[in-house]
């Protein structure tokens, strides 16, 4: 019923080779680092709100669990806090691996 919520945010074209890794598509329980928060043209205030609750570049994040059914919403650890995010919200958070560092 809400399959449309995983909308891809509109962005300037990125180099075709780089596949963006976003928080809605990472495995559970593995630490990642926020690269940047992508703006969503439909919800302009979302990027700022995500940054305000702690999704800043360089911050450690980890997906703790996912709601059933459909894996939406997600429970995400960001820094020292835990937030429930919708898939569409997590899709705005571009992350990269920690390069082997543990949480």
């Amino acid at each position, binding site marked *: *019923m*809400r399959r*449309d*919520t995983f*909308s891809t945010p509109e962005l300037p074209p990125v180099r075709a080779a780089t596949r963006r890794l976003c928080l809605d598509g990472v495995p559970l329980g593995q630490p990642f680092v926020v690269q940047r928060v992508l703006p969503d043209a*439909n*919800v302009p*205030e*979302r990027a*700022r*709100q*995500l*940054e*305000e*609750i*702690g999704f*800043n570049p*360089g*911050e*450690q994040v980890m997906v*703790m*669990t996912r*709601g*059933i*059914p*459909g894996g*939406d*919403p997600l*429970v995400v650890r960001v*820094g*020292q*806090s*835990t*937030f*429930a*995010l*919708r898939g*569409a*919200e997590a899709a705005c958070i571009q992350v990269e691996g920690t390069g082997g560092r543990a*949480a």
Partner: protein
Amino acid sequence: MTEAVIHLHPPGRLAALVGNPNAGKTALFNRLTGSNQKVANYAGVTIERKEGKLALPSGKTVRVLDLPGTYSLHPRSPDERITCDVLQGTARGEKRPDLVVCVVDATNLRRSLRLVLGIKRMGLPCVVALNMADLAESRGMRLDPDALASELGVPVVSTVAVQGDGDAALRALLERPEIWQPTTTLMPVPQPPGDELPDHERVRQILERLGLDVVAPHLASDRIDRVVLHPVIGPVLLAVLLFLVFQAVFAWAEAPKGWIESATAWLGNQVGALLPEGYLRSFITDGLIAGVGGVIVFLPQVLILFFFILVLEESGYLPRAAFLLDRIMGGVGLSGRSFIPLLSSFACAIPGIMATRTIANPRDRLVTIMIAPMMTCSARLPVYALLIGAFIPNRKLAGFELQGLVLFALYLAGILGSLAVAWILKRTTARGLVRPLMMELPTYHWPHLRSVALGLWQRAEIFMRRVGTIILVLTIALWFLASFPTPPEGATRPAIEYSIAGMLGHGLSLLLAPIGFNWQISIALVPGLAAREVAVSALGTVYALSATGEGTAEALSPIIAHSWSLATALSLLAWYVFAPQCMATLATVKRETGGWKWALVMAGYLFALAYLASFVTYRVALALGWG
């Protein structure tokens, strides 16, 4: 009903507590002010305003304002807007604080310090309370308030809001006159949007220099979450918990309800004996005491339900419950945040509707308000009990009590009705809309008896204040309608038939005949508008009974069993599932939505729904030969 806005500021210096949600701000507020608190609303909006008096060791007093928690100075909900407005000095009827106490969660400095930097820029004198300092240190963080103070340029003290003298350092700090001195200009410095990055970068550097740039896992909370948020165990646990809460609400409230009922009856009799027969006696005993008593009777259930809600909230479980239910609520276009208000509505729709204030999305909040009255509130129970007792045979069906099953079906009908309405509203008003969730799941805490007790006391006060105002006025108005004009000399029928309410009832019965209501029911529905359960005593009056309270239902049961058909009884039950038979709820909706529009829309659609449900029920029952 409007509230007067008082622009007179009481004397004394005003300190405002500001901080992130879940930073322990309210616990610190409770610790500072004790029970010396006043809970009201901010002028023009229905956001709870908590002010208290803090007595300093020197004997001076400071007024302390507990502002709604906020993540930033860019408000995202009406609560957060109040915080920003008060800090800027633009909130209606509010004095700009003389000092801001930034309550900072010491275990989560990165996010909290950004807010501190933002507040500092507003030009108000500012101090930082490093709250939950004990928790941070138990996680291995070495906090140095003085070092942090020199980094931030404002005084910093450690506090532990949940410990007896955990606020001593803050109290001592507030004694120092120099911290109250305005630093620079009092003009608010507006922060241009997009100027956030420097703050976040500054905080990162400060934390790095202080050696606090560590991310410690919270093992205990995570272990609990592994069970509570488990895809299978989590929902089962939630269902069991809700079941136990409902059991308690109805089982524990029985005794206090009985005391209140007998106290009301006793008071009515005592006062009645003192007064001469006449209007005054009827007004005081039948109108005032019986009317108000009929509402206070629900106080025990409201308090028991709120006790559980407060404990679950304090412990950190409620946001997790909202997370678990988010998907189901999403199916009908709501978010998990609507769960708490709807849960409260099972005790009484009024606190439920007031609890919608935490829903940031205006559409979601309105939809939640509109469906809240369909949750079976405790005021319906006396009516359900009367009708089920009179019409549903006391036998077992597939191992279950048939009467219990009917009661369960009535609850279910309300829930399904509300889901259906929300779903229709989703299809019509929320196409393609994705509402934000971004809900914090705080670390688990043991609930503190003190905060729970204070919260309960405040709920009781709010409920009683409503009884004292709206409900009292309505009760008096309906007593008047049911008593005047008086019956003519030599009248043979009950007095209520000659009154305005009686005339209205007779008029209504034409409209209600197609759904099987006789004129007696129609008349009883008029005073029943004050509060649902009043219909039971009104039926007693119409059937010319003199008994009151529980006696009415007992005496009434055989009469209606004899004179109504089963189809009529089922139709009335269906009516009660949906009909907005509660003026106090409509008055609350008017207040919460800022006008009569939504209150009237609610009354209109719920009456239409009730009529439809009763019509279908009645016709089906007739077809089944239950006429």
